[in-house]
């Protein structure tokens, strides 16, 4: 699926390299894969980082004995004979979500099980490994996300609608990468509800007592 929308905010070298090398937490991998599904520019960049991995593999050579190799080859050929050939991958179902995300949700937008987290904002936490977390956020037009700062890194990818913060506007396909230094208050722009995929490798810290308590219940 390729959207013709103009994407202005892209992945960093560090994220692309981490995704290519396979060192990012699962939650970040999901955001990166979803962005690349929408962004040809980052897809091309990813190809370059994977080529670096290919070159690394090429020079990783270890001296193996020919006898040992022959035994291993026989084992592989036996496994090939035992198993079926790979069926062609299923064609992705077009929707608001690229198929990587649909796999985690169990369907497109209408399959999301939203839960209110206050001030009209809804979220759905997606199940990934614990080193980082990822959730879908649904923010009604004009509503603000609770004011929060960051530990670690937070990735926010827009899938529908748009949001604005102090510096910029982010629409479908755009990714915002916030680090500890940033302290921002995104507001959903006019139009349809803003739907984002947001991943963080540390719990968000909210200012003020009330959101903090809500945060515990909402498992943000």
């Amino acid at each position, binding site marked *: 699926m390729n959207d013709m929308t103009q994407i202005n905010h892209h992945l960093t070298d560090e994220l692309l390299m981490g995704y290519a090398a396979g060192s990012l937490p699962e939650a970040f991998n999901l955001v990166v894969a979803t962005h690349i599904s929408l962004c040809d520019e980052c897809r091309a960049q990813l190809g370059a980082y994977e080529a670096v991995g290919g070159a690394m593999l090429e020079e990783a050579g270890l001296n193996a004995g020919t006898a040992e190799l022959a035994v291993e080859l026989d084992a592989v050929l036996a496994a090939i004979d035992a198993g079926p050939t*790979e069926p062609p991958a299923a064609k992705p179902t077009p929707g608001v979500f690229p198929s990587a995300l649909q796999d985690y949700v169990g369907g497109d937008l209408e399959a999301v099980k939203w839960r209110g987290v206050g001030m009209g904002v809804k979220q759905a936490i997606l199940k990934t490994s614990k080193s980082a977390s990822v959730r879908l956020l649904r923010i009604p037009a004009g509503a603000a996300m609770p004011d929060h700062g960051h530990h670690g890194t937070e990735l926010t990818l827009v899938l529908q609608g748009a949001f604005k913060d102090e510096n910029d506007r982010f629409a479908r396909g755009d990714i915002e990468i916030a680090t500890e230094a940033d302290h921002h208050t995104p507001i959903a722009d006019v139009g349809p509800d803003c739907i984002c995929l947001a991943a963080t490798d540390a719990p968000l810290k909210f200012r003020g007592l009330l959101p903090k308590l809500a945060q515990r219940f909402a498992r943000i």
Partner: protein
Amino acid sequence: MLRIHTSQDREAFAELFNHFGPRVKAFLMKSGSSMTMAEECTQDVMVTLWRKAHMFDPARASVSTWIFTIARNRRIDLLRKERRPEPDELTWGPEAEPEQTDVIALQQESAQLTKALADLPEKQRILIQQAYYGDLTHSEIAEQTGLPLGTIKSRIRLALERLRHAMK
């Protein structure tokens, strides 16, 4: 690769196995796999290679790059027990035959990249290797090496600039 796909050529597969089998195993062991795990994983990678041979596009990636991505995914699967979300494929349905000129251009670029990597200053090359072999994020490299995160990021940035320059 093409011979494996079109005529299920086992001799061609044996050649590929002899070249890449030891490399995949070495790569996995440098990434922290035990010998047993690396052997098991290498076997899986080579079986996958045979089964997915029809999906290989020589105009989009070199064989070593393609095998690298299979090995990487298998490592995530086996060592971390995690799923690996992948971007949507660009094209669906019967693929057009790749243009021979694209294939040759890609082979030349791959050779150029290998040389450019080898030509990197030692300090930069080691960091790139750690990022790929070691399954390490930049912060984890900082913890392991004791180097400041800023130094690591700037060295990697310099390395990437050199690679980009060499690939122009």
